[in-house]
C-alpha cells in the first residue's frame, strides 16, 4: 500500500545541488565526476539493491503531516494491540439469509466492524489475495464472507488474519436462521461486551472444533477491559455443539432480584440465532499458529525478587544485611552501671539513647 506521502528515491537525490567548490565534501566529488549529471547521491541511490522498494522498506517514506503519522502509528505492530476489527463481505451471489445474517452480525459487532455493501466476486478458499488486500486497506484482522450457490447454500466463511495474511478460515453453512427482526422485543445496547458460553464436550475433544471455538471467541469477544460495570452484562452468545452441528443463540440478560447479592438470571432471546453446519476448514500450520500466539516479553508479569510463598499461602520476604561487628553492638543500657571518670564534672552522654526494640 502506498502511504500518503512517498517521494521516490530519485526525487530526493536530485535535491543535491551541484556546486563546484573544492572544500565541500559532497559537491567536490560530483564536480570531479564531471558533467554534473551524475551527482554523488544519485550514484548512491543507483547502487541500492533493487529489492529495496518504497513499499517494502518501512521508514523510508516519512509522513509529512501529523495526521498521516497518527494514521500509520495506529496500524503499526504494537505491544498492546488495538481491538480487532471485522470486515463483513458479500460474495458474488448472496441469498437473503446471508445478507441479513451479515447485517445482524454487523450490529452485534458495532463499532469494531465494517460492512461492505458491494458484491465481490472472489473465492476465499481458492484465492486469498483479495481478502488479504481488503484486510490491509481497512486494517481489519477478522473477516466474514457470505455467499450462496447451489453446491454450498447460505455459506458463511469466518476467518482471521495474522500480519495481513490469512491465519484460519472456517466455512459454515446456515441451516436455520432467525434474524434480529424476527424477535419482536427490545435489544441490548450496541457495543456491549457479550458473554460467550460454549456447551458440549465436542468443543474440548475435537481439534477442529477447538480452533473454531478459539475463532469464535476472537471474533465476538470485543475489547479487553480491566473493569466492567456489573449492570452492563447484557448479552450472552451461547454456542452448543451437538450432533455435528453448532447452534448459536443470542439472549438478552435480565438480572432479577434474588434474596442474596448475586442476581438470578433470566434470559430473553433477542438476537440472531443460527444453526451452523461445519463445512470446509483452513487452519494455519502449527508453527505459524505458535508464532502468532507469541506475546512480547514486556507483557510478562515481572517477578518480584526476594519474595516467596509457601504451600499454606504465607508470604516470606528475604532481607540482606550488612556484616555487623558484634562487639560494637548497641544493647540495652543500664545507666547506673556506666563507668564514670573519677572526680570532676562528669557529663553523662545523654545523647546516647537506647536502641529501639526491633519489632519482629
Amino acid at each position, binding site marked *: 500500500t502506498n502511504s500518503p506521502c512517498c517521494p521516490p528515491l530519485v526525487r*530526493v537525490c536530485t535535491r543535491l545541488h551541484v556546486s563546484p567548490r573544492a572544500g565541500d565534501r559532497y559537491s567536490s566529488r560530483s564536480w570531479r565526476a564531471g558533467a554534473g549529471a551524475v551527482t554523488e547521491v544519485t550514484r548512491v541511490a543507483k547502487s541500492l539493491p533493487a529489492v529495496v522498494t518504497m513499499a517494502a522498506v518501512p521508514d523510508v517514506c516519512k509522513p509529512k503531516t501529523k495526521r498521516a503519522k497518527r494514521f500509520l502509528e495506529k496500524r503499526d505492530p504494537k505491544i498492546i494491540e488495538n481491538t480487532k476489527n471485522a470486515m463483513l463481505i458479500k460474495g458474488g451471489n448472496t441469498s437473503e439469509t446471508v445478507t441479513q445474517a451479515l447485517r445482524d452480525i454487523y450490529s452485534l459487532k458495532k463499532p469494531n466492524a465494517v460492512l461492505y455493501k458491494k458484491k465481490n466476486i472472489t473465492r476465499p478458499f481458492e484465492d486469498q489475495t483479495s481478502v488479504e488486500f481488503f484486510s490491509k486497506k481497512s486494517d481489519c484482522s477478522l473477516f466474514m464472507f457470505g455467499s450462496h450457490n447451489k453446491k454450498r447454500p447460505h455459506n458463511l466463511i469466518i476467518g482471521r488474519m495474522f500480519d495481513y495474511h490469512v491465519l484460519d478460515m472456517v466455512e459454515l453453512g446456515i441451516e436455520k436462521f432467525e434474524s434480529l427482526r424476527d424477535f419482536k422485543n427490545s435489544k441490548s445496547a450496541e457495543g456491549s461486551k457479550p458473554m*460467550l458460553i460454549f*456447551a458440549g*464436550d465436542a468443543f474440548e475433544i475435537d481439534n477442529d472444533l477447538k480452533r473454531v471455538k478459539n475463532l469464535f471467541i476472537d471474533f465476538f*469477544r470485543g475489547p479487553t477491559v480491566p473493569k466492567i460495570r*456489573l449492570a452492563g452484562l447484557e448479552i450472552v452468545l451461547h454456542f452448543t455443539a451437538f450432533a455435528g452441528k453448532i447452534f448459536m443463540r443470542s439472549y438478552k440478560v435480565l438480572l432479577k432480584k434474588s434474596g442474596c447479592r448475586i442476581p438470578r438470571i433470566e*434470559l430473553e432471546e433477542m438476537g440472531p440465532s443460527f444453526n451452523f453446519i461445519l463445512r470446509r476448514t483452513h487452519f494455519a500450520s502449527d508453527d505459524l499458529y505458535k508464532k502468532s500466539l507469541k506475546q512480547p516479553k514486556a507483557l510478562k508479569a515481572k517477578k518480584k525478587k526476594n519474595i516467596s510463598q509457601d504451600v499454606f499461602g504465607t508470604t516470606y520476604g528475604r532481607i540482606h544485611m550488612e556484616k555487623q561487628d558484634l562487639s560494637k553492638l548497641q544493647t540495652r543500657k543500664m545507666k547506673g552501671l556506666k563507668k564514670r571518670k573519677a572526680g570532676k564534672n562528669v557529663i553523662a552522654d545523654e545523647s546516647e539513647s537506647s536502641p529501639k526494640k526491633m519489632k519482629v
Partner: protein
Amino acid sequence: MAALAAEQLVAEAERSVRVERPVELELDLGSLTALDTNPLKAGGQREAEAWLRSLARDNTQLLVNAVWQLPSERLQEGVVASLPPPSTRIPREKPVPKPRAPTRWEQFAKLKGIRKKKKSGLVWDESRKEWRRRWGYQRANDETKEWVLEVPDSADPNEDQFAKRVAAKKERVAKNELNRLRNIARAQKHKVPGLGLAPTPQPSKAELGEAIRVARASTASVGKFQPRLPKEQEPRNAGQRRKFQPLIGDFSAERRRQLELLDVISSKKPRLDTTKAANRQLREDDQEQAAKRKKMRPKGRKGGNSHNRNNKGKGQHRKTGMKPHGKRK
C-alpha cells in the same frame, strides 16, 4: 422464629442462584467466556429451543456467579468489578514489534557515554526581544530572514551570496537525507552504499582504479563510447550474468505459475500435441516429396507419392510416457 425464617429466606435465595453440575465450567473471566464440557442429553425436536434456553440460563448463571465473586468497587457509573487478564490464548493481529536498530550516531553516543541534553522549546530572540521557538515557524535567530550578507574578502565580488546560502542549505538537507537512508539500509541489513571516493593524499592502486572507473562512467552515455587507455584492460566480467526472480515477489503470479504447472502435470492430455506433431511431420514429408518430385521431373515420374508416405496418420501415434501402474488389489 424470625431468625429461622430469615435463614430460610437466605437459603432459598441462594438456591435460586445455585446451579448443580457434575463437571465444573472452565471459566475465563478476562474475556467473559465459559466452556461447559458436560455431556448434553438429546431433547426432542419440539423442545429444542426450550432445552437450549434452559442450558444457556444455567451456564450464564454460573458465569455470573463467578463474576460477582470478583473484587468490585462502587463508582459513579455504578458497581464495577475488576476483571483479571484473559487466560485464553488468542493469536495476535500483527507480529511482535522489533526494537528499532540504533543509528550510527546513537551507537557512537552509547560508546562514548554521551547523553541527550534536554533543550527548551523556546529561545530568547535578542533582536526582537521576545521568546520564540527554537525551530520551525517564526523561529528565533532565523538565518534565512537575514537580508544583509557580508561579502568576505576572499570571495569573488560577483558571486551571489544569497544563492550560496540557499545552495549550502540544500546540501545539508540532502546530506541528512542520505545519512537517514543509509541508517535505514544498515538497520535492514541491506548493502550500505559507500560514499565513494574520499580525497586521500596518497591513493592506493585500488582507489586509483576506482577513480578511473568512476571518471570513465561519468559521461553522458555512461562511458560506452569512451576509448580505452593504451595499457588499460577491458573489464572481463562486467554486467549481470543471470537474473533471478525475488524470493518473495508477486504472490498472485507465483500462485498462477504453480497452479498452471500442476494442471500440466495432472492433465490426461499428453504434453506433446500429437496431432500437431503428426501434421508437421506430414508437411515435412510433403515438402520432401515435392523436392524429390522436382528433382525427378526431368527424369520422369518414377516414384509414386502414395506408397512412400509413412504410417503416421491421425489415429496412429506412439504413446509418449507410460503411466505408472498403481497397486492392483
